[in-house]
């Protein structure tokens, strides 16, 4: 159970004009500026639920995850995860939690993954039986058995991410934070990670928060999404509802002899519009689709939800 109440995190920065002159000026007088990474957010997540956190760079996704993982202290507001205040860093909490950051490695670079795992076994006090069982299960499902004895820095990015996932899941966490786990991976590696997380979620039912810029991840894994913009939540609800809410439009992709273009039209005007197109152009191909999730999310992030 995650319960977040009115959580706020602000940073004070000072503004510096460019150049040496600006630097000298900032030595004497500094214009302080408070920036809100999170501005009074509320969130409830039940055990077994997986939530996709979506937002532009700097919207506050990572800050929220870092507060919930106990790395950063909030400025104000409350949050409990499994009944613990994360930033108090209770060992009982930290033993049940896992964080995976696509851009920061947790396994030792110069050592084979198995060495790192042994250290993690010690850190999390995993008993031999569970350790062996989990190692077996994870390396089988991720199909990475042979690479575990090779120094991590010699692995490909995709293999490294799999190793990171293993490292994060050895201790059977009940809460998992996945911060852009698929970043930089090629399509097939992305797919493998996604498939794995999907099955893992079904089988072990942890609380999971996932951030990703790849909509495929979100679509595949998260029935519920939270959209965050400038430190505030602009949407918290089911993914399909967003689709329905803004899904009254259809997208027409038209290929004529001269050009290719896309047109977004309300469902009700569909037949009139298509007729028009056929009358005015020499159509080679015409496609009618739902707008993509990317388009919808982008429009929400730009314009808000608008009238319901």
């Amino acid at each position, binding site marked *: 159970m995650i319960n977040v109440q009115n959580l706020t995190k602000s940073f004070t920065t000072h503004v510096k004009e460019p150049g040496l002159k600006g630097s000298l000026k900032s030595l004497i007088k500094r214009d302080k500026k408070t920036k809100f990474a999170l501005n009074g957010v509320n969130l409830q997540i039940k055990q077994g639920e997986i939530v996709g956190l979506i937002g532009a760079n700097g919207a506050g996704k990572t800050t929220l995850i870092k507060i919930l993982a106990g790395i950063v202290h909030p400025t104000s507001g409350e949050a409990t995860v499994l009944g613990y205040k994360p930033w108090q860093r209770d060992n009982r909490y930290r033993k049940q*939690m896992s964080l995976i950051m696509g851009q920061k490695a947790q396994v030792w670079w110069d050592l084979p993954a198995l060495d790192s795992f042994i250290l993690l076994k010690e*850190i999390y006090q995993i008993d031999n039986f569970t350790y062996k069982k989990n190692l077996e299960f994870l390396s089988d499902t991720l199909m990475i058995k042979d690479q575990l004895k090779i120094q991590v820095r010699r692995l490909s990015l995709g293999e490294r991410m799999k190793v990171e996932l293993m490292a994060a899941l050895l201790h059977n966490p009940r809460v998992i934070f996945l911060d852009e786990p698929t970043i930089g991976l090629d399509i097939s590696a992305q797919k493998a990670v996604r498939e794995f997380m999907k099955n893992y979620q079904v089988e072990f039912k942890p609380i999971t928060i996932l951030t990703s810029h790849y909509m495929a991840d979100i679509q595949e894994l998260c029935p519920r999404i939270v959209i965050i913009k400038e430190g505030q939540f602009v949407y918290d609800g089911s993914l399909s509802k967003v689709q329905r809410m803004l899904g009254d439009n259809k997208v027409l992709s038209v290929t004529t002899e001269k050009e290719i273009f896309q047109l977004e039209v309300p469902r009700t005007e569909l037949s009139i519009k298509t007729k028009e197109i056929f009358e005015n152009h020499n159509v080679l191909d015409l496609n009618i689709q739902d707008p993509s999730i990317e388009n919808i999310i982008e429009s929400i992030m730009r314009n808000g939800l608008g009238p319901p």
Partner: protein
Amino acid sequence: MKRYIRLYFHFLRFSFSKAMEFRLDFSFRIIMDIIYYTVNILFFKVIYLHTPMLAGWNENQMMIFVSGYLLVDAINMTIFSTNMWWLPYYINKGELDYYLIRPVSPLFFLSLKEFSANSFLNLMMAIGFFTYSLNQYTGPFDTLDIFLYVLFLLNGSMIYFCTQMLMILPVFWTHSARGFVDLFYSLGLAMERPDRIYKGWLRVLFTFILPFAVIASFPARFFLEPFDWKLFVHTAVVTVFIWSLMLFVWKKGLQNYSSASS
């Protein structure tokens, strides 16, 4: 506690297997260390060419002190130095994240995980010289004295560690590259001189504020001279104070840790 010892053995294992890969570095270190030791010993040998007594000690006694601070230095080089080198970078670059989420004291983790297997021979040489000096020492002493001397020197290493941490931890607020570590290294030389040469405000500075004189000189006095209660209380107060202060600043620093975003 047992778990922490087991963890430390893992750190040792990793460090040695890593060090094996870089043999050139290994031999360089040995040469550097031999030069460092020779310079330190010669420095005092030269002084004693001109005077029979310095700060109340003759050459024979001084070598006990020299071997003491070389031991503290070697302990620091092998156990803490690599970790201390990286710590400010970790703080600035937001690399503390993975240490903060583990159910293990992050302070333990961050200050001990990189054992400098390369400097291990340095430690061996320091122990060798320490034994040699004791062997050469003409004054009276028994096993208990040696035991206590080593104990006080270990305590001195802890003070050294805390002082160094206190110079690094401001990085949490300043985000400068190295904190005041350079200041620490230049003032750290104060450890390598007998404390009696410090008078007046310098004495206050080096026995209380930056207690370098307490690190190795006080222990040597316990060994060389009759037991002095005042010195003992002084050592205990400084130890407890600097350790608590370091923990306090560490905690405050973590609260201020902003974890530069990826």
